[in-house]
């Protein structure tokens, strides 16, 4: 099955990330569970690829494979032409649960990647301050994760991801716990950031509107075992104004289309 459609503008460049024939089985209590099957997907440099699909269809699994957390049981993944090995250092991964270090306060958590990079103390402090501002956590630098709300923890994890400036961002429902205002601000921020620095993003979301609003392409999965149902090009301008999308007719048609693609899986689940 050749699920991938052409890249934007029929880009002749080689893909940055390439999944071919990917399958992943987990062994749960001695039984094999096929999480994803036959995934063929190319991700190109500088695009924001959104992934949507029913819960449990293997979206996180795919990101984990791309990050090199575990190998696929079938097929190959390559990153920049080379097979992905454990711990792909080119990607930054904001996982579905935040995995903040409980013994570090917010500022300390955001500082980790900067410390690893070996920046000086004042540099770290300045950058952390700026990042907290970006994600709206100013003034909470001294709070520990267990004193934060779920959304604040997510924002802290997001700031930590932005701190280390990886080439490719893997984001697993990064804005799920944010309020509508902040969510829109972060969507604008991410698009702006990726366009400015030419980042590549794989972005999992359950929100179809979000998938269209920030994606250049949208991959729709179906479940059990997870396969790619369709890859949809989002025909919106790269420098779209997310604030005003609601009134954009293209945006409305494409979200409606996406709903139609996913609708069968709603009735199936019944």
């Amino acid at each position, binding site marked *: 099955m050749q699920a991938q459609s052409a890249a934007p503008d029929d880009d002749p460049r080689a893909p940055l990330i390439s999944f071919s024939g990917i399958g992943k089985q987990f062994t749960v209590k001695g039984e094999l569970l096929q999480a994803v099957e036959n995934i063929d997907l190319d991700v190109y440099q500088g695009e924001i690829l959104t992934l949507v699909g029913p819960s449990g269809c293997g979206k996180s699994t795919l990101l984990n494979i791309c990050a090199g957390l575990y190998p696929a049981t079938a097929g190959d993944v390559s990153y920049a032409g080379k097979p992905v090995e454990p711990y*792909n*250092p080119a*990607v930054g991964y904001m*996982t579905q649960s935040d995995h903040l*270090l409980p013994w570090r*306060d917010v500022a300390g958590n955001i500082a980790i*990647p900067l410390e*690893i*990079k070996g920046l000086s103390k004042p540099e770290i402090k300045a950058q952390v301050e700026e990042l907290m501002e970006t994600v709206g956590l100013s003034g909470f630098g001294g709070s520990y994760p267990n004193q934060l709300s779920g959304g604040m923890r997510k924002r802290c994890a997001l700031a930590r991801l932005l701190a*280390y400036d990886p080439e490719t961002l893997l984001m697993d429902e990064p804005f799920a716990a944010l309020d509508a205002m902040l969510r829109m601000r972060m969507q604008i921020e991410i698009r702006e950031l990726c366009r400015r620095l030419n980042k590549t993003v794989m972005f999992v979301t359950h929100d179809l509107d979000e998938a269209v609003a920030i994606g250049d392409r949208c991959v729709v999965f179906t479940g059990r075992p997870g396969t790619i149902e369709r890859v949809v090009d989002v025909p919106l301008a790269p420098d779209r104004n997310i604030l005003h999308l609601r009134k954009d007719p293209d945006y409305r048609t494409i979200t409606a289309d996406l709903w139609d693609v996913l609708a069968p899986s709603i009735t199936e689940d019944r």
Partner: protein
Amino acid sequence: METPSRTYIWVLRAAFLVSVLSFWEFSSGRLASEFFISSPSAIAVQFSRWVMSGTIFYHGAITLIEALGGFLLGGMIGMIFGVWLGRAELVAEVLDPFIMMFYSLPKVALAPLFVLWFGIGIDMKIYLAATIVFFLVFLNTYTGVRAVSREQVAILRLMGATEKHLLFKVVLPSAITWVFTGLRLSVPYALIGAIVGELIASNRGLGYLLANSAGQFDTTGVFAALIGIMIMAFFLNAAVKLLEAKAMPWRDLNSKREMSI
């Protein structure tokens, strides 16, 4: 939920203590022979006499040095081995049955052997206490290092962390709660090591004071020495608690913050 005020609890505690002591005082010589149970007043007199003469401080200091020495020595080696074996899976796998075998041995049973090896000086008690403390701290540290969240390690690895980064940013901080559990458990055991050592062979220390009083059928002295040991254990425990709060501020917050699920 209404929690009773702190003062109220302290009043109740004082009342409890006073009633126990009064009952003891009353029973002494009436319900049981004073020879066996002594009496709180006599013990207080004996204890203050020891305080005045400095006896209790002299022997207390000896025991403190032994317990503290053993605690530090055993704790340090335990931590180092715990971290090392926690990281070196093969070595841990190979040594596991031997460690468990040795762990199940009641360490005080080693006392006679230690007398042979190290004589009856202070060092023998330090080694005895250290051996006991070592296992507690070692096993806790080892478990702590092993219990480090693989997800947190993976996240840091993706950020390009080296082994050294992982050790200092994830493994050690996450193991520290376990290490402190080991250290806190060790306090009474360090004292046990020191005092058992003194009981077996010594002419100094609270254990000696205890054994000596018992040898002279001086129940009052035995109780007074026990009180000295209790006071020392109390202060050692408090010191570790304090250190724990300093080393793990997030823990402190954890117990003080309002619960939410």
